[in-house]
């Protein structure tokens, strides 16, 4: 059951396999005796939302950490735009167009919302040796930050310290900071966690808007949301992929039903 064949989305849509922006091949991570992620293969196509669902402890966050470079894999390969990046550091992958958001709020609490976004955007215009020039004078990072705040609906809050935001707004800021780095591939770790229905709707609209131009990996617990926006769903149980298909096919999949209903019903 563990080794699913490689994602067939590309072949089905009659595209060459290299069209995948981000690809995992037989990716695995072991922590001592625990195999947190084993033999996961998936590929993210451009202009599509690929959701990863699974019960708690299924290895979803570990998978994101492997893809983003925060953790080194113990087996397998990560390919970004056709290039093997398995040994690249996280900053290097980020520079190459890989952005991520975090499950827990991971922001700069004392800094303003704008500075949070501007600092993220500055990653692509670093010039640390220009010590005589004000950071505020960097037009590129300013405009990228403004753009990211606009998309995430935070423009009104630009001057507020991030610590003063509501929980939902902090989640929006998570995504805005990710967008500010202008990535091609977005790895979003539970962007809807702890959000009210209204905030959720807003975030889902944001995600739909981002589909065009990005390849998105969405880890999420909210099933309604996942089935509403995902083009493709991968289901993980105990670190392994048990199904990877269109939402309808996943809904009908017997293994998935057993995994979910068997544990929860």
């Amino acid at each position, binding site marked *: 059951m563990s080794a699913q064949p490689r994602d067939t989305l590309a072949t089905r849509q009659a595209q060459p396999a290299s069209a995948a922006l981000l690809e995992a091949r037989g990716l695995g991570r072991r922590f001592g005796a625990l195999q947190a992620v084993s033999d996961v293969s998936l590929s993210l196509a451009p202009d599509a939302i690929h959701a990863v669902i699974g019960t708690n402890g299924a290895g979803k966050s570990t998978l994101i950490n492997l893809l983003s470079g925060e953790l080194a894999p113990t087996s397998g390969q990560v390919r970004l735009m056709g290039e093997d990046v398995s040994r690249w550091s996280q900053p290097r992958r980020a520079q190459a167009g890989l952005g991520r958001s975090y499950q827990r709020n991971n922001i700069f609490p004392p800094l303003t919302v704008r500075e949070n976004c501007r600092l993220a955007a500055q*990653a692509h215009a670093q010039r640390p040796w220009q010590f005589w020039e004000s950071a505020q004078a960097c037009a590129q990072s300013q405009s990228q930050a403004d753009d990211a705040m606009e998309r995430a609906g935070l423009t009104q809050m630009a001057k507020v310290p991030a610590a*003063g935001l509501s929980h939902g707004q902090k989640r929006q800021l998570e995504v805005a900071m990710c967008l*500010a*780095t202008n990535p091609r591939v977005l790895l979003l770790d539970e962007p809807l966690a702890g959000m009210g229905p209204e905030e959720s709707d807003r975030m889902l609209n944001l995600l739909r808007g981002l589909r065009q131009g990005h390849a998105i990996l969405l880890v999420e617990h909210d099933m309604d949301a996942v089935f509403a926006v995902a083009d493709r769903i991968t289901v993980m149980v105990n670190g392994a992929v048990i199904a990877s298909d269109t939402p309808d096919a996943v809904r009908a999949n017997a293994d998935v039903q057993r995994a979910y209903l068997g544990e929860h019903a």
Partner: protein
Amino acid sequence: MTTRTRIIGWIVALGLIALLPLLPAPIGTPFHMELGIRIIILAILALSLQLLVGFTGLVSLGHAAFFAAAAYFVAVAAPQDGPGSGWWLLPASVLCAAVLALLIGMLVLRTKGIYFIMVTLAFAQLVYFVLHDFPLFGGSDGTYIYFRPEFAIGSWLPMDLGDATHLYWFNVLMLGLTVLILSLVLRSRLGHALIGIKHNEQRMRAAGFRTDLYKLASFVIAGAFAGLAGFLYATQHGYVNPEMASWHQSANSLMMIILGGLGSLPGAVIGAITFVLLSEWFQAITRQWQLLLGGFIILVVAVMPNGLVGGLASLRRGRARKSVAPAARGNTEEVSS
């Protein structure tokens, strides 16, 4: 505080400090100028440490190593038979401290938190014992510099460091230069990135920053300015000894910035002034002066968690109006960007 009021504040403060030698007899004496220079040197050392601790979030207990390295460089490199040229001794001693910071930084920055504190301490002790045990450095007695470096332009001496008043102003000038450069750094993209690393290094890496290199840059810049303080110390005293690299020296600098307020350049200067003046005063009162000084620091930390600068700011805020968004002001300069 806006940028303009901050600049005016610095100019006024430095101007007042520069006036000291012109004051009438009971104050403008050589004793007070010497005390002033001591404060200025320790303020520069505290400012350099502030960049590392208060703005990058790296708590070092070995900063005195770079202070001592530059001072010893002057002692060893200055000619024995006449004044050396400050034009090369100053930059070379600063460079010496920076190179040492680069070497030590590359090793210690592999660790984090409490381990970083311990490893910086260990390297500073290493420097201490090298200075203590190598005959070249004069052992525990240290070594002398017989002539103050000269900053001559042709045969003209715009600043004669042999003259007490000139020496004092030279130190004020160096303090101003340190404040200027560190302010620019903090205003720049480099400084903003360092502050980002202080608050959340993980997020900085996720955004695409090589945080290891940024931290190394901070470590080296801090080391270089500690070196400037070391050069000034060697110039003033004409004498260096291994105690300059002792962990007491590092800890005192750390105490100064905690006392004045972490994450604030004025905090470092106010911390240094308070620390030196109080130790002078307490030493005049009692032999157990360290007990009083320690008690004072504990009191400040307990009552003003953001140091003297933070305490003053909240006093002013409280007087202005009690309820205006406290989070928006904070204790540090970084928020107002």
